[in-house]
């Protein structure tokens, strides 16, 4: 199966390990990976800040980039949710609206793709230790992907899973919110880190680069002995 990878700008620039793990994992599961060089950012940072006009240029670029793909897969729920929003954003533009719709329909978040399209629930991964999982807001609420990550994690050998208290609460990232409303963001991420600590987990697993940068950044700053891992890295551990 041919899979076109939408790596996301954060992964491309800051978390290349997540990109690598995604490629290796999908290849191991029998996919052929295509990575179009012309991909940029999905436009979310500008769009969410209210700069709709500016963000549309990036969106058009992405629509073109993935136009001929069969499946588009991305290791980030929030960015996939943004692709799903494109048809709504271009609804008054017939030509782009149609293309946006096609892109939205063939785009999947990584775990969703593995479970719903590849129909694989056990990827044969192994990671020893205690873990908890952060359910990102955009991934669960906007995209509606809730069970796929849990199904896959439950089948990772050696991993002891504990549910995160207050798991539905936002970590305080929110893109530019994290710097615009830094004071409030701090309170939110602190509460999240406290909850992670309460689980006694060795690993905090997530599926969204933004949230992980936020929670991970706070964990590092406060010197907590918790390793933050993307679910692609966990599923690629053997």
């Amino acid at each position: 199966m041919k899979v076109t990878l939408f790596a996301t700008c954060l992964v491309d620039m800051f978390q290349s390990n997540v990109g690598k793990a995604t490629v290796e994992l999908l290849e191991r599961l029998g996919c052929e990976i295509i990575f179009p060089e012309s991909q940029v950012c999905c436009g979310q940072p500008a769009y969410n800040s209210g700069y709709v006009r500016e963000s549309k240029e990036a969106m058009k670029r992405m629509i073109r980039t993935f136009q001929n793909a069969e499946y588009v897969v991305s290791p980030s729920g929030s960015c996939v949710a943004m692709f799903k929003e494109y048809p709504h954003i271009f609804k008054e533009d017939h030509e782009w609206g149609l293309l946006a719709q096609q892109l939205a329909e063939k785009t999947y978040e990584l775990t969703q793709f593995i479970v719903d399209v590849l129909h694989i629930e056990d990827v044969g991964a192994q990671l020893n230790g205690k873990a908890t999982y952060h359910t990102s807001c955009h991934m669960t609420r906007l995209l509606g992907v809730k069970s796929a990550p849990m199904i896959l994690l439950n089948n990772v050998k050696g991993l002891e899973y504990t549910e995160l208290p207050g798991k539905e609460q936002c970590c305080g990232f929110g893109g530019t919110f994290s710097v615009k409303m830094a004071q409030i963001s701090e309170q939110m991420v602190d509460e999240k880190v406290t909850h992670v600590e309460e689980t006694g987990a060795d690993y905090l697993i997530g599926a969204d680069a933004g949230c992980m940068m936020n929670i991970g950044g706070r964990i590092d700053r406060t010197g907590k002995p918790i390793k933050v891992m993307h679910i692609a890295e966990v599923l690629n551990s053997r």
Partner: protein
Amino acid sequence: MTMKIGTGDFKERVDQGIHDSFMRGAVAGAQERMGTRRNDAAEELGNWEDWRSHGEEIRQHVLEHLDYYLQQLSENIASRGGHVFFAQTGEEANQYIQDVVKRKNAKKVVKAKSMVTEEIALNDCLKQAGCEVIETDLGEYILQVDDHDPPSHIVVPALHKNKEQIRDVFAERLGYQKTSKPEELAGHARLKLREEFLSADIGITGCNFAVAETGSFSLVTNEGNADLVTALPKTQITVMGMERLVPTFEELEVLVSLLTRSAVGQKLTSYITVLTGPREEFDVDGPEEFHLVIVDNGRSQILGGEFQSILQCIRCAACINTCPVYRHVGGHSYGSIYSGPIGAVLSPLLGGYEDYKELPYASTLCGACTDVCPVKIPLHQLLHKHRQNIVENTGQAPISEKLAMKAFGLGAASPSLYKLGSKIAPAAMNPFTQGDKIKKGPGPLKAWTEIRDFPAPNKERFRDWYKNRDKGGNQ
């Protein structure tokens, strides 16, 4: 703007909120309690999503035919001998009510809880007319006794206070000498309020929903105070927001069910009262004179526009009770009697961007509010619409941000610029980098790195790795 509360700018208010550990404890506890109760009550109904859709349909239908239902309501009230006044502004509403007070030569008004009267600052206006106003909802009463502390929540106005603080307020202002047990505190307030009910000239209430077909209005409470407000005084005035009505009792049932479950996690509240006009010949109680004041105050401007769905709101506060931002900053930070997600959408509409331009940004757009709203208002999308408006139409967005976003537009649309940018990023960030972390970043990263580390850009980007790997042919 009369719905405005507190002093200082948004940042100062937030700072105050964040450092108020009593308030934060009270709010976090309440959010957890109310959240769990709401979830249980929704689950118990079985098909909650169907109920939400039904609620949404009812509210949308009413808004689409608002003029028709308002007229029907007015005619039905008039035919039973009630008076209806349509106030375009808060001042008009206050003036009308003040006139009634003067005509009746009223000295004391008892009030049931009403957000719309807070919105138009009715109490201040009544006081100016020389009339004593007594709030009879326990929460509102506490705030009134505490030197008119403003409400911080639309359903539980004194949410920001814990019981020890309430005991202290009562001790200081009312000579209260008992403990901080809720029953004892409530008992004390009840004793005080009973005298007030008996001696009041006018009763003023809000309105949860009016029923157009019968000319009735409903009040949903847990304390029963609203029943005394409507039963004892000779004159009654009900103030309602223009959009708060339903066609018939059938729709009332659906909305009340959504309201009580969403607001307090109850199947029904202790009292749900439906009243129709003034007392009739064989009624044992009720007012001799009845006035309904319908308040527009900016609502007809919202109608028909891109924010119309916010008028579907039934003021249940479920969005507030789930909001992670409200949780940490409390209601007073919003600077408006309408706080939380509903407040962040509604306050700029009713009060203008000048005063409320920060509120739409006080959200991570996490969507928790949209998820719980019983009438499916897309709250996080409306917050985003505000942001777009502020950027495109008000000129209030900071210049530096505008420039950055323009650069973003250029960079993100052009793969070669993007590639170049991401390639030189590690070198550009080098002076700030320690190991693989940035601990003290420049520009917008400054605020980020004050509390957290930021990852240093990868020297080998993902795309470089992919390309090299391709070349190596080890696929």
